[in-house]
């Protein structure tokens, strides 16, 4: 599973993307984030405040309760600020 990070999430995690093999209990984006937060100090820092995180599964915006089953690409990022 490919995980992408953007903006300050990317900076805190310390990398723009990684390929991971999540444990079977990571069935939602939120659960995946819980697990990712245990993988490094940077991840823990990036994911400390869930209210400031947004996500996309296979490039579609979703809530943190969305399923990651069968997903190829998960993106985790701050609220968008374009325009």
């Amino acid at each position, binding site marked *: 599973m490919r995980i*992408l990070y*953007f*903006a*300050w999430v990317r900076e805190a995690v310390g990398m723009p993307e990684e390929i991971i093999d999540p444990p079977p209990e990571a069935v939602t984006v939120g659960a995946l984030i819980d697990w990712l937060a245990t993988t490094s100090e940077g991840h823990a820092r990036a994911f400390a405040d869930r209210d400031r995180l947004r996500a*996309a599964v296979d*490039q579609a*915006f979703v809530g943190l309760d969305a399923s990651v089953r069968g997903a190829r690409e998960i*993106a985790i*990022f*701050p*609220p*968008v*600020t*374009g*325009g």
Partner: protein
Amino acid sequence: MIRVIVSEVQIDVATEMAMIEGSAGAVATFTGLVRADDGVSVLDLEHYPGATEAALVRLANVATSRWSLCAATIVHRVGPMAPGERIVFVGASAAHRGAALEACTYLIDRLKTDAPFWKRETRGMASNWVEPRDSDDAAAARWTPINPPLEGEVAVASATDGGVSRSR
């Protein structure tokens, strides 16, 4: 005609205006610029290649259906830019002005919340990521409920310096 461009190149409004005018009677545009008066020396725009273009094409398609537009254009700059430079240009053309003006407002309101861009401002030695504004969520929300995008209308655009031009 849908035209979506995400690029590091400066936005050429004369070209965009000419392209969107076509045979329409009314064209409304919005241009967002790096403000030259609030101390920012560099504005950096990060985006999610692929997902960004898809979101913008979807947005342009929804607006085109909802207001029977002749054309919808969204051009968004990414990368570093200086004060006074254009960040975004949106345009809508239609037979009459009401549709063009409303669709233009819709495009920029929804772009602010629906497309994966992130701004970082540099002031002096300090850089910080721009916080989202509640007023942007409110502006986007007043357009719901929206018509869902039609089947098959969502094209995934290339994240190159070129753009996506789709005839309808």
